[in-house]
């Protein structure tokens, strides 16, 4: 059980961004892992985690055309194993038997092609400074999509932190499979919330290249400063509450200006003293 917990943590850390917390995946791009027959093959699962997998591929009759980076360099063999065990038993997946520890019964998964070594298309060279302008919103996306910074933060973009609806993107470059993966992710945007908005406002190839260049820069800067693994919450002390906690009392204090004018009314005086005229001195 301790092993399964480790697998769950690894999943949250490395997989959930694309395959989603419940293993549901994202239609068209990231296949579901819950109920995915290909997970029956333990060797295949380990191989995909280590070497990555690029689409298009078929799962449950639907086509997915995404790009998953190899995780072999980041995860040790034991971690790959516990992650694979977790995937094969989580969300009602009944593939991990009691002896699931050691690469057991390999049922060939007919529905999934074998992991193809991802052949990266020649990436157009992006301009990181243009990417930064697009990220922040200084430059508008040609098709009218809102800027990344509306929902996402990047370290050192602002000392107070940034958007918090979406994930911190400081190291998205590593997380999403570097240039190839990130290009794929941005070409067909399929994350929750974004998929609805960006369906009608796709990014152009040049914009994607610029954004990838910018995110490569932020990731390497974070590595250089040793902040890559930093919890985004470290930068995310929620200044909004401080603004509110300071601002609201100040506004109440402002009301004191008008308070002396709220003197006792004639009716109040009448009720208190029983007479209409001003009280005699």
């Amino acid at each position: 059980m301790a092993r399964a917990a480790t697998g769950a943590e690894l999943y949250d850390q490395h997989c959930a961004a694309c395959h989603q917390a419940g293993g549901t995946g994202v239609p068209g791009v990231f296949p579901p892992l819950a109920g995915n027959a290909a997970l029956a093959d333990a060797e295949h699962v380990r191989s995909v985690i280590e070497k990555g997998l690029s689409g298009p591929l078929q799962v449950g009759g639907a086509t997915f055309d995404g790009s998953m980076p190899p995780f072999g360099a980041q995860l040790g063999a034991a971690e790959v194993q516990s992650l694979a065990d977790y995937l094969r038993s989580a969300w009602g997946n009944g593939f991990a038997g009691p002896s699931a520890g050691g690469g057991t019964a390999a049922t060939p998964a007919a529905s999934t092609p074998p992991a193809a070594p991802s052949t990266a298309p020649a990436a157009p060279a992006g301009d990181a400074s243009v990417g930064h302008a697009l990220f922040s919103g200084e430059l508008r996306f040609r098709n009218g999509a809102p800027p990344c910074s509306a929902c996402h933060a990047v370290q050192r973009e602002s000392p107070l932190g940034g958007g918090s609806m979406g994930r911190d993107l400081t190291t998205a470059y590593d997380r999403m499979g570097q240039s190839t993966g990130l290009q794929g992710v941005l070409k067909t945007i399929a994350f929750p919330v974004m998929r609805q908005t960006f369906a009608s406002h796709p990014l152009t190839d040049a914009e994607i290249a610029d954004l990838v260049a910018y995110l490569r820069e932020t990731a390497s800067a974070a590595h250089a400063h040793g902040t890559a693994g930093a919890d985004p919450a470290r930068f995310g002390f929620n200044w909004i509450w401080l603004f509110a906690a300071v601002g609201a009392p100040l506004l109440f204090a402002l009301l004191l200006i008008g308070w002396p004018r709220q003197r006792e009314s004639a009716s109040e005086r009448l009720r208190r003293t029983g007479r209409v005229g001003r009280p005699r001195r």
Partner: protein
Amino acid sequence: MNALLFLALPYAAISLFVAVTVYRFRERPFTVSSLSSQLLERKRLYWGSIPFHWGVVLILLGHLTALLVPRGVIWWGAVPLRSWLLEGSGAALALWALVGLLVLLWRRASDPRVRAVSTGMDYVVLLLLVVQLASGLWTAASYRFGSMWFAGVMTPYLWSILTLRPRPELLVDMAWPIQLHVAGFFVLLAVFPFTRLVHILTLPLGYLVRPWQIVVWPRRARALRRRR
């Protein structure tokens, strides 16, 4: 569920808002008022009504700005510090309004004279507004930067509703506090004509454009004072 909350509810709310408001103005014109209770209790009203009204009006103007000039709002947010200033000011106003609203609720529930003239709908309105302000404040704090993504998601959504080409799917992935805030707005719109909220329509904007008037006193005030 999504279609119910963000397709059926908006149109039901807008229909009620328009039809019943017109009916009330035509058939019950003298009920279009908030039925002020200022004569009954003034002190707590001062600390509740002024924060609530100023806070809410300014925040609503912010929402309206993002609805009408989304590009301007995104331009403003291109510098993160400016986003923080905008969102922080909004949050301060929201908390100010929320505390004021709670003062109003406390006043209405505890002052016997005010309670005597209160209707059930007065409490309904107050409670709906508490939900609305709390969910809005929570959204601003937890799902930054609302001003920016409002322009990217909510502005297209609201225009899609208003132009009869609804796109409720824009809200399907939103976190529940945000969905609550949006649905809460439509609920407020729906109850609007049945409650004291109608007094919003009595805002005397006509004063801004009416011809000026000369006020002539029968006696000059200074002369009057000297004689006394």
